[in-house]
Structure formats: C-alpha cells, structure tokens
C-alpha cells in the first residue's frame, strides 16, 4: 500500500490535469459558464426555502432568517457531495480508453472528479459567502470548525467516489443504484430540515455520515454554536474508514479493470 501511495503522489500532476480537463470541458461552449456552478445550489436552496415555508405555515412558527441561512449553508455542501459521487461513479467508465491502454494509478479518476466538484463548490460557496456578508450574518469563533467539517466531507465523498467507480466498472447496476440514492438521499439527510425538528427520533438520521457534518455547519454558521462533537467524531471515523476502505477496495480490483470494462 505504501508503494501505491508513493506512486499516486508521483502522479499528482495528472490528478490536477484531469480535474482541470473536467472543469474546462464542463464550462466550455456554455454561455453561462461558471454560473452553472451556482445554479444547482440556488435551485436546491430555493426548494429548501419552499419546504421550510410550508413547515412554518403548518407549525404556526414564523420563518426566521436563521432558517434560510441554515438551508443555504447545508444545500451547497450537499450539492458537492452529490456531484462528486456522481461524477466519480462514472469516471472510470467514461475514460475507458485510458483505463485499457495506458498504465497509471487509476484512482486519479474518481479523485479528479472529486477535485473538479470541489472547484464548483468553491465557486458556489464564494457566492454564498458574499451573500452572507451582505446580509450581515453574526460571526463567531465557532466558524473555525468550518474548514475541519468541510475536510471530513471531502474525504467522505472521495472515499465513496473511489468505491462506487470501481464497483460500477464491474456492475453497471451500481450506477443506477447510486443515482437513486443521490436523488432521494436529500430526504434522508437533514438538508431542508434540521434533525431537531424530528424530535428524539431525529437522532437516527445522524447515522447518515453526511448528516452530522451538515448539522455542524449550520450550528457554526447560522446559530453560532459549536457542533455536536461525538457525532462529528462519528462522521470523521466513518469518513476515514470509507476513504481507506474505498482505496483498498479500488486497488484490489484495479488489476482486473482493463479486462472487465
């Protein structure tokens, strides 16, 4: 494993080039260009606001600005998770001519997909940051948690990406399964709602490793509170396990890629 990590490090520039290619190709010949990176998060945020408004009407509590901020800071990272796992999943199959012809560590494909999605995420979150500054959100020292939470999220998403890309090379079903999970995952993840709205049973939703991260982000940014540390610890260990497990799984299957694709 040590050797393959050294090799991956040697090919890091390929990782950047592939991510650059993915970004460039995605925005080439489109009029909106980088605005596309913002469009999807905006749509998710608007959907979230509709859901929150309906909830406010039904419960009789007024819709507060903190609720809208909460939806926004959860939607943008969720969009990253969805796009990086989705692109990661198809990355090997879409590059089959390279997989079968040239030797290099193939995990650069799902990792580059995650990196390209991270770029979109950076664009969208800069836009969000501008909005948050403009509406004068209260800042607190808790914001220092944000980079750590985002890091856990990136590790988790790229681990999943490696796992599903290798699996979908052997079984095309995986691709459809991932699509379905990503589409409906938003209902099982506290993006539009927060776990506290579900009372005691909401706790079960935190088993979804993305949930504590999103809850943590909303706590730090929208509510100036520290995140729920035990659950963050759970997410962190889950992310590390998925990343290492995904990497080993990928490396285990890699020799058979060329003949199975």
């Amino acid at each position, binding site marked *: 494993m040590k050797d393959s990590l050294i090799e991956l490090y040697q*090919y890091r*520039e*390929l990782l950047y*080039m*592939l991510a650059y*290619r993915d970004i*460039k*190709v995605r925005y*080439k*010949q489109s009029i909106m260009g980088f605005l596309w990176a913002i469009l999807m998060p905006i749509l998710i945020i608007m959907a979230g606001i509709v859901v929150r408004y309906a909830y406010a009407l039904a419960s009789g509590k007024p819709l507060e600005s903190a609720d809208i901020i909460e939806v926004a800071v959860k939607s943008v990272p969720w969009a990253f998770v969805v796009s990086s796992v989705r692109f990661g999943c198809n990355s090997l199959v879409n590059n089959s*001519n*390279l*997989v*079968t*012809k*040239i*030797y*290099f560590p193939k995990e650069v494909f799902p990792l580059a997909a995650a990196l390209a999605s991270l770029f979109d995420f950076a664009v969208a979150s800069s836009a969000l940051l501008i909005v948050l500054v403009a509406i004068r959100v209260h800042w607190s020292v808790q914001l220092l948690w944000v980079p750590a939470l985002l890091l856990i999220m990136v590790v988790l998403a790229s681990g999943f990406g490696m796992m599903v890309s290798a699996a979908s090379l*052997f*079984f*095309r*079903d995986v691709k459809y399964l991932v699509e379905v999970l990503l589409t409906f995952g938003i209902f099982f993840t506290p993006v539009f709602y927060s776990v506290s709205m579900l009372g005691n049973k909401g706790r079960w939703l935190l088993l979804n490793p993305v949930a504590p991260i999103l809850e943590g982000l909303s706590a730090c940014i929208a509510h100036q509170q520290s995140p729920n540390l035990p659950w963050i610890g759970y997410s962190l260990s889950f992310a590390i396990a998925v990343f290492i497990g995904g990497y080993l799984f990928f490396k285990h299957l890699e*020799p058979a890629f*060329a*003949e*199975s694709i």
Partner: protein
Amino acid sequence: MSDVAVRMENVYKKFRKGEIYNTLRDLIPALTGKMFQQQELSASDKREFWALQDISFEVKRGEAFAIIGPNGAGKSTMLKLLSRVMKPTRGSFYLPGKCSALIELGAGFHQDLTGRENIYLYGTILGMTKREIATKFDDIVDFSGLAEFIDTPIKRYSSGMYTRLGFAVASHVNPDVLLVDEVLSVGDALFQRQCIEYMQTIIQNGATVLFVSHNLRTVAEFCPRTLLIDHGREVTTGPTAKAINEYKSRLQEHRLADQSRPVVITGVEVRDDNGPCHRFQTGQKAWIDIEALAHQACSKIAVVIAVLDENHDELFATSTERLRHGSVSLKSGEVLRCTFEIDLGLGPGIYYLSVFLFRYDSDHRFDNWQVTESILVWSADDTTGPVNLFPKVVRHEVCGSGVTQNRLNPLVRSRS
C-alpha cells in the same frame, strides 16, 4: 540496476470468453447455480482460455527486440502485460525502468481542448511532470509541425494531425523501455520516417525497444533478435531472420488449414527467366506464378494481381478476367495454377505485389495474399516517380542568338 531491461518468466494469461456478469441480475442466478450445481462450474471453466502460456524471455538494456506472430497469437495481450495495464495470471514479470508505449497515439486527448492543453494532458498521462512538458513544449510543437493550430480545439484536427500531435508528445517521454505497436502502419510517409528516425535515436541513446508487430520489414531492419509466438505459446526466440522464416512457414500452414475460406491461395512466386527473383532492372520481364486450392466448390474465380508502392497504395492492377481470360470454377480439392507475365515499366524504387481471388459479379473477395518480400526495381537512369517512361535526351545544345521561337523543335510543325 542490472543490465536486464525486461524479463518474463513462465508467464500465463487467462481470459474469459463471452460476457462476464455485468449486472447483478445475471450474477445472482450464476452464483446460486455455482453453489448448488457442480455442473455450472465446469461450464464456466470451459469458457476460459489461455491467451498466453508459458512465455519466457529476457531483453538486455539497449537491445531492440521484436515479438511477432500471426493475428490472434497473443500479441495484443503481450502488449497489455508489458505496458502493465493487465497483470499476468501466473508467472513473473520484471520491468524496472520507465516504460512508455507508442500505442494508440492520442488515447488521452480530449476533443474539446486545444492542442496546447492536450499536450499537457497527454504528457501527464504518459507520466511526465508539468515542468518537464513546459521545457520541452516548443520542441514538441516544432516536431508536430502544428504550431499554427496549437490553440485550436483538436476536434477540428484531421486524423493525420491528431496522430502527429500524439506522436510528438509520446516521443518526448524519454523512456527506458519503449513499446512500439503497429503505429507505423498508420500515417503518411513523412510520419513513418519520423517514427523510424525517432526509434533509431532512442536505440542509440541506450534505451530498450520492444517491437510488437507483423510488419516484418521494419522488424528485420531494427531488431537483431525476435520472439515468435503463435496460439499464445512461444515458437522460437532467436535471430530475426530465422524467426521470420519460421513465421512465414507457419502462416502458410495456417492458410492451408483455414477451412472457412472456400478457396485459398497456396503460393505466389515472383521470378525472372532464371528463377525466383526480387530485384529487377526497370523494363525487365517478370513472371508471377500463383497457385490456389479449393476447399469447396467455387465458381467464377478471377485471379487479380496488383502492384503497390512503398506506402501500399495501388499503382496498377489487372486480372485474368480483365485480360479476357475469364474466370474459372473449381471443384473441391482442385488446384488452380496461373502465371502472369508483366513488363516492369516501373521507376527505380521499392514495390509490393498483392494477389487476390475475386468474383466480379458478386464483388466477393475469396482470399488475398500479400507478397512479403518487396520487389526492388533498379535503373541505370536516374528518374523519380513510380513509372519509367524510358526517357532519352535526343537534343541538348546551346544555340547562337537570333533563333526564332517557332523553330523550337524542327521535328514538329508549328501548330499556329
């Protein structure tokens, strides 16, 4: 580092024929079948086949080594193993140096990116660092000859430009071991010459070249030692000339054994009036003896001969039918013998001869045969081009002043 560049020891590679379970729906019944029925398991074993069996060879550093074999012998599998895209099922494979392959040039290109971006992309795919590419960038562009199109998306490139750019990048990798595939068979004459020059410099600089090909002429030119494989097994390893002879006789056996063709060409010989010959003076007579054997009854077989130039472009073709000798019908087991006489009115150069059996009314080609030895035509006169018009200088003089224009040629009357 030892002086061994590549070593394969008892390498086996197994493939599965047919569809591998690509959806869970197929896998589940197959797995349960395996669990409950021993029958199922042996059925899946039958679908396996060995693409390579017990291959061993060793190539020293700085050596040019060829691997040849007929189609389906395992050459492409060998390439995949050597380029480390696949792993051998059994056996050990040792290749410590940096390996680069001239295979599928431009496999990593992206249509929407410009030539410049693709140089960086393909370069990193081939294992170069960004800095390395940046320092060699101008050389690469010069070599490709595509400087004015370098900022054009490569989807606008022609296929020739595409290959040239790919080769320009691939040839700047500086590998310890270079794998060469059939790339030489694509591209124009200029490109092929560039390829060959590049390989010569690579060999001179002490790199190892592994040639996997059935282009026997280039193999003979470059590689002193050759491994011949057939049906995944090693036939012989040794001097190239010996391996090529063995290869040709194998091809002949394959051809005779091939029952799928109703009629096969069993032999073609080019001779002058003294016997077999491959070197002719321009204008000399040549005879082409052709022999064909029918496995099944066949009708309306016409024998076609074609003369090709060095790039395998057809220069001349004719047939028994075109020469008003009609076509013949053969019964199973019958042999057809046919001899053409031609005047080699060719300019000095290298030519190839190709023979095929053709049925004109249904446009069906029964079999074809490419004569592997080239035909060399020499001439005492220095001319260029594929034809010899047998020029002579009949007048060559300096005339004094005051010559009128319409007396340019006294032999031809003025047209006006």
